[in-house]
Every structure is written in structure tokens, then in C-alpha cells.
């Protein structure tokens, strides 16, 4: 047993570590053995083992029980708290302690007879819950002995009388008491209530009943609101046939009952004739009965007053006017007739007499009331008629008044309208008169104009006729004057042209002064612009100005003296390069430079195309002041010499251009001034 159990536990702990487990197993076995020994010793010494044992026993329940039965009993006993937890085994254990501290050695003796011991414990546990015993402390102590005493007393068996009965009775009593206690406690404690109603048979009903009673006692009127008790009132039954119906009245006796089973139109179309007949007969019967009844009524009415009895006189109906009274009289008459028919009419004599007198009295009274009523009605009628007449009169008066008023108003309105129309008419008349006047005036004016025209024509005619006279002379005079004006205008033109020419001359002089002034280079743009302005639209002047290079008047041109000065420098340089061959290198240049120093100088207008002679000629021309020719000579140079002289040439050209242009313009100005004298 131990061997089987231990590996299982070991496996639970750690299956992988076999060696450790085995060792542990060993150790554990040893421990168990020692514990067993201890237990045995403890059992013998009867010392209660504390919680350690208990835990151990719970950990694996079966192993420790085996060695001897005493061991489980003893360890479970000590914890007092364990009593609360419901278990039959514990219940048993408590028993040996409380009644007498019997030595454990005695218990093993009792256990061999297990039938009683096993049967008895289960019974009390469900019936008697431990808390109940605990709560009803006083009642509990005496109770337990009864079930427990049996196992205790069993072995003795001294008397067998009423044993079963006592047991049953006690049991019943006990269960009843515990049930009552349970109910009572469940009313107090909610937790217990839940438990009780859940697990105890009939517990819920009992508790509910008590709760209900309590509730009723506290709130007697609570439930009346929920379900009010039915009030005992007389039943009013409305009959089915009550109220008005569309049906023709049928006597209850011959209520037509249609037999559905019978052959009819609802089953088949055949044999309807019979049905029709039947129905027709039924209707006839009903109608005849109705008519018959009516006839009877009609017959009876005249019949009754015509059959006067011998004994009692009928009421005279002649002076009765009121229909109610008449009906009453009829009734009385019928009664009288009945009485007359009967055996002893005298018996009712007095009664009928009083009735008659009453009737007559009633009749007279009604008559008097009627008279009074008629009188009052007449009075009222009179009153009303008078009132109505008064009203009518009033109304008439009102109407007449209103009519008067309206008529007056109407008159007024008519007058006003008439006046307004008259005014309008007046204004219209005035306007038309004005219009007519205007027209007349216009016509007059037209006539006047026409007359004036006519008069003018006449005068013109006369003037024409007299033109040959004085007016003809006047015309001649005017012609002279015109000629004079023409002459004067021509002269003014000439004067203008002269002035222009003069201005041009002045402007030209200004330009010349500008470019010839020694402070050069100096731009003469303004002067040139003035000249252009003065020249106006002279083609020649414009062309001359256009021929000048813009550089000239923007930067100015150098004077002839400056040109000569510069030529000296340029000529030195050119001379250096005078002996250069074409495409000369450093050596060529150097040679030319050196050799140019030893060259002989020429004078005057030298012959020849070489550089030296050209330079000499240019120099001479410049000395003479002929820049034009000098420039021409310089232009003949070529190669390096030309390159070196390029700038000088440009300057000379600029000056020449300007000089040429100015000359042209001067010529033009002169021409203009000459042209002025022509006309």
C-alpha cells in the first residue's frame, strides 16, 4: 500500500528526477514508518496529536488508516473548529470524548460491530444540522445521546422492551424539533434560510407559510389592494330581446323555428314550391291574427259605451273633452260594464258612484284649468301683439329716419359730384381755350415770318437792282483788299523762310563752334539736335546729319591740331614696323626696330609706295592743313603699319565726316537763304 502510494505522489512532484525521487521515497518511507510508530505510541498514550497529523491524514487519506482503526479517530478529534464542518466521521469522533473519556482501547471493541455504527450516523446528519444544535445550545446537549447512546448501549443489551418504538418516536420528535428550529432560525438568518429552503424537504413551504403569516399580521390591508374582494351587488341582467328591433312583431307563441334538416332551398332548388307555400301560409296566419286583433279593438271600442247596464249608469261622455279624462272614463265604463255583467253589481255601487263623482270633479277641474289657461293665453297674446306692434312701429320709424338720412346724404353727394364735374369742365374749357390761343399765336407767328421773308426777298430784289450802282464799286474795293492781303501773306512767308534760314545759320555756327573748339573731345549732340529742329523737314539736312557717325557727336571729334600731334606719335611707331616682312616673328620685329633707326628721312611729297614715303607725304599734307588728303595717304598703309595707324585713321575720318556734313548743311542753308529772294 505504501509502496504504491509513494511513487504516485513522487510522480506528481517531479517525474524527471528519478534519483532524487527514489531517495526522497526512501526518506519518505522512513518518515512514514516513524510516524506510524509515533502514532502507535500516541494512540497508546492517548495524547491528541495537533494539526500536523490532521493535515497529513488529509493529504493522503487512506494510508494511515490501515495500520489500526484507532489512529484516524484520535487525530481528527482535537480541532474544535472541525465540529462546524459537516462530516459524519467527525460527528462520531466527538461522541467518545463528550460523554466519558473512555480509553481508546475500548473503541476498537465497539467498531467490530459496524452495522449499527454505520447505519446510525447517517440518519441524524441530514435531519439535524450542526448549526442548529450549536444555536440552540440548551436543547442540543441532551439530544445527541439518544442516537449515540444506542451504539454505546448496544453492546450491553440489558432490556429490549420498546426499543424500536422509542427510537422511532425519539427520531420523529427530534426531526420535528430540529425542523421547527430550522424554520425558526431560517426566519432569523438569511444565509440559513437559503440553505434550509434549498436542501430540506418541505422547508421552503414551511418557511413561506410563516413568512406569509408574519406579513399578514403586519400588513393586514396589503393584499386587499392587490386583489379587491368581489362586491355582492344585485345582478342586472339585460334581456336578450330588449331594445328596439327591426323585426316585425311576432307573438311568442308561434315562433318560427326553421328546421335546417328539412328539405329546402338551402339544400336543393327542387321542392321549393312546397316551402314557398308553407312560408306563405305562415305569413298569412300572422297577418290575419294581427288584423283580427285590430278588428277586435275597433269593434270593442264602439261596443263598450253602447252596452249600458241596467243597474249602473255609464258615465256620460258628451261633456268630456280632455282625452285623458275620456280614456279614464272609458276605463271606468268598462269596469262598470264588468260590474254590470257580474252577479252582484250593487256591491260596487257606492265605489262606482264615488268614482263617477271623482271623474266629474276631475272633469270640471280640468275644464276650469283650461278656461284659466285660455284666458291667460289670450292675455299673453294681447300683450305680445301690442309689443309686436310697438316694435313694428319703432322699426318703421327707424327705417324712415334712416331713409331720410340716406336721402340727405345722397343729395349732398350728388351736389358735390356735380360741383366737381363743373370744376373739371371749367378747367377743361380753360385749357382748350389756352391751346386754341397758342395755335392762333403760332399761326400768327408763321404768317409774320412768311411776311418777313417776302419783305427780305423784295429788298434783295431792290438791292440787286441797285448793285450796279454803289454796291458794284464796293465789290471792287473788296477785291483790292483781297489782293493786298494775298501780297502781305506772301511776304510773311518770305519773312518766315528768311527767319528759318537765319536760325539754321545760327544753329550751324553753333555746331561748327562746338566741334572746332580747342577743348576736345566734347560732344555736340545738343547743338546738332537744335540744328535738326531748325531744319524742320529739310531732306538734305536730315541726310547730312544721318551721314555723321553717332560716335562723333556723342563723344566729340578731335581738332586738326590734336590729329597732327597724335600723328607724330603714330608715325614713330609705324616707322618701327615699316621694315617688317609678312608674317614676321620676334626676330623680324627686332630687326625692323633696329633697322628703322638707321633709315634716312624723306621730305615733302615723296614718291613711292613704301611706308616711309607715305608717312612723309601725310606729314606734309597735315602741315598744309589738308586732313582729307592726309587720311587718304594713311589709308594706303598695309600690314602692321596699318594696324598701328588704325585709331588715328578713325579719328581723322570722324572729323572729316563731320566737316563734310556741316559743309553740306551750310550749303543748304545758303541755298535756302538764296531761295527766299525769289518770290
Amino acid at each position, binding site marked *: 500500500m505504501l509502496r504504491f502510494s509513494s511513487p504516485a505522489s513522487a510522480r506528481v512532484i517531479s517525474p524527471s528526477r528519478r534519483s532524487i525521487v527514489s531517495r526522497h521515497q526512501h526518506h519518505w518511507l522512513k518518515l512514514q514508518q516513524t510516524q506510524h510508530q509515533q502514532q502507535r505510541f500516541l494512540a497508546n498514550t492517548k495524547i491528541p496529536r495537533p494539526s500536523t497529523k490532521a493535515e497529513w491524514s488529509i493529504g493522503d487519506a487512506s494510508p494511515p488508516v490501515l495500520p489500526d482503526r484507532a489512529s484516524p479517530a484520535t487525530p481528527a478529534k482535537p480541532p474544535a473548529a472541525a465540529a462546524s464542518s459537516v462530516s459524519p466521521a467527525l460527528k462520531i469522533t466527538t461522541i467518545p470524548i463528550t460523554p466519558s473519556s473512555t480509553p481508546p482501547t475500548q473503541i476498537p471493541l465497539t467498531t467490530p460491530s459496524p452495522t449499527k455504527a454505520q447505519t446510525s450516523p447517517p440518519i441524524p446528519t441530514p435531519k439535524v444540522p450542526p448549526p442548529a444544535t450549536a444555536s440552540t445550545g440548551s436543547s442540543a446537549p441532551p439530544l445527541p445521546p439518544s442516537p449515540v447512546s444506542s451504539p454505546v448501549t448496544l453492546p450491553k443489551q440489558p432490556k429490549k422492551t420498546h426499543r424500536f418504538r422509542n427510537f422511532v418516536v425519539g427520531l420523529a420528535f427530534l426531526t420535528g424539533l430540529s425542523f421547527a428550529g430550522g424554520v425558526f432560525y431560517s426566519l432569523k438568518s438569511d444565509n440559513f434560510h437559503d440553505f434550509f429552503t434549498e436542501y430540506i424537504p418541505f422547508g421552503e413551504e414551511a418557511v413561506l407559510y410563516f413568512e406569509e403569516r408574519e406579513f399578514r399580521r403586519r400588513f393586514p390591508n396589503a393584499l386587499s389592494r392587490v386583489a379587491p374582494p368581489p362586491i355582492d351587488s344585485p345582478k342586472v341582467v339585460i334581456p336578450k330581446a330588449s331594445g328596439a328591433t327591426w323585426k316585425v312583431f311576432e307573438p311568442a307563441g308561434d315562433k318560427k323555428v326553421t328546421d335546417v334538416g328539412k328539405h329546402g332551398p338551402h339544400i336543393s332548388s327542387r321542392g321549393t314550391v312546397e316551402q314557398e307555400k308553407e312560408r306563405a301560409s305562415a305569413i298569412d296566419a300572422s297577418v290575419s291574427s294581427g288584423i283580427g286583433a285590430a278588428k277586435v279593438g275597433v269593434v270593442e271600442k264602439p261596443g263598450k259605451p253602447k252596452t249600458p247596464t241596467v243597474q249602473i249608469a255609464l258615465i256620460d261622455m258628451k261633456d268630456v273633452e280632455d282625452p285623458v279624462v275620456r280614456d279614464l272614463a272609458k276605463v271606468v265604463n268598462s269596469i262598470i260594464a264588468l260590474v254590470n255583467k257580474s252577479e252582484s253589481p250593487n256591491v260596487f255601487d257606492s265605489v262606482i258612484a264615488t268614482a263617477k263623482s271623482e271623474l266629474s270633479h276631475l272633469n270640471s277641474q280640468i275644464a276650469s284649468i283650461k278656461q284659466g289657461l285660455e284666458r291667460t293665453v289670450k292675455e299673453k297674446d294681447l300683450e305680445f301683439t301690442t309689443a309686436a306692434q310697438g316694435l313694428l312701429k319703432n322699426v318703421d320709424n327707424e327705417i324712415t329716419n334712416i331713409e331720410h338720412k340716406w336721402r340727405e346724404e345722397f343729395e349732398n353727394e350728388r351736389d358735390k359730384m356735380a360741383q366737381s364735374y363743373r370744376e373739371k369742365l371749367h378747367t377743361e374749357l380753360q385749357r382748350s381755350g389756352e391751346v386754341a390761343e397758342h395755335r392762333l399765336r403760332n399761326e400768327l407767328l408763321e404768317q409774320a415770318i412768311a411776311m418777313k421773308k417776302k419783305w427780305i426777298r423784295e429788298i434783295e430784289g431792290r438791292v440787286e437792282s441797285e448793285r450796279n450802282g454803289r454796291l458794284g464799286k464796293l465789290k471792287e474795293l473788296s477785291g483790292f483788299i483781297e489782293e493786298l492781303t494775298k501780297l502781305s501773306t506772301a511776304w510773311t512767308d518770305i519773312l518766315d523762310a528768311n527767319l528759318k534760314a537765319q536760325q539754321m545759320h545760327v544753329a550751324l555756327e553753333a555746331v561748327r563752334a562746338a566741334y572746332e573748339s580747342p577743348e576736345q573731345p566734347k560732344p555736340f549732340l545738343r547743338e546738332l539736335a537744335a540744328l535738326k529742329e531748325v531744319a524742320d523737314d529739310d531732306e538734305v539736312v536730315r541726310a547730312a546729319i544721318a551721314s555723321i557717325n553717332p560716335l562723333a557727336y556723342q563723344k566729340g571729334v578731335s581738332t586738326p591740331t590734336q590729329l597732327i600731334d597724335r600723328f607724330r606719335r603714330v608715325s614713330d611707331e609705324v616707322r618701327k614696323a615699316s621694315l617688317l616682312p609678312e*608674317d614676321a616673328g620676334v626676330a623680324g620685329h627686332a630687326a625692323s626696330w633696329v633697322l628703322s633707326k638707321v633709315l634716312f628721312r624723306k621730305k615733302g611729297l615723296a614718291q613711292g609706295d613704301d611706308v616711309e614715303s607715305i608717312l612723309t607725304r601725310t606729314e606734309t599734307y597735315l602741315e598744309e592743313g589738308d586732313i582729307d588728303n592726309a587720311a587718304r595717304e594713311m589709308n594706303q598703309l598695309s600690314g602692321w603699319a596699318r594696324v598701328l595707324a588704325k*585709331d588715328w585713321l578713325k579719328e581723322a575720318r570722324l572729323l572729316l565726316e563731320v566737316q563734310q556734313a556741316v559743309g553740306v548743311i551750310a550749303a543748304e542753308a545758303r541755298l535756302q537763304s538764296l531761295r527766299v529772294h525769289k518770290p
Partner: protein
Amino acid sequence: MTASTTQLVKRKPESEGLLNEKWDHCLANLLVKSTLGAGFGIIFSVLLFRRRAWPAWVGVGFGAGRGYAECDREFKGAAGGVSRAVGERLKRD
């Protein structure tokens, strides 16, 4: 006004000064090149030729030759931009 013209003159050298300018350039170039060549020659002589004089002279010669060549080219192309051969061809046409 004069200031502006002088500036203009400065900016654009006058045609007569063209050759002189070229000469200046050439000489400066020659000097620099020959000095450079001499410098290289001296360095070489010191490093390789145990302070002999001839490498320095060779360097100078190289430098001067280089300067001369450059000058020559400059002078040749500058006049009209037209070489002799091209000029002849143009004449023929």
C-alpha cells in the same frame, strides 16, 4: 569729361601702342620662363649633377626658348591674322 575719355583710352589701348605692349609681354614672359628654367636647372644640378654649372644653363636655355616661341607665335598671328600661304591663296582668287 576728360576723366571718362582717359578711362576709355585706358580700357582700350591705342592702336599705335599695340606693338610696344606685345614687346613688353614678350620680354616679361621670356624673363620668367628663363628664370624658371634656370631654377629647375640649378635644382637638378644640385640634386643629380653634383653642382655642375651646365644643367643650370640648359634650364635657362629651355626657358628662354619657350618664351621666344610663345613670343614668335604672338607676333606672327597678330598683324592681319592671315599667314603667308593663306594670303597667297587669297591673291590668286
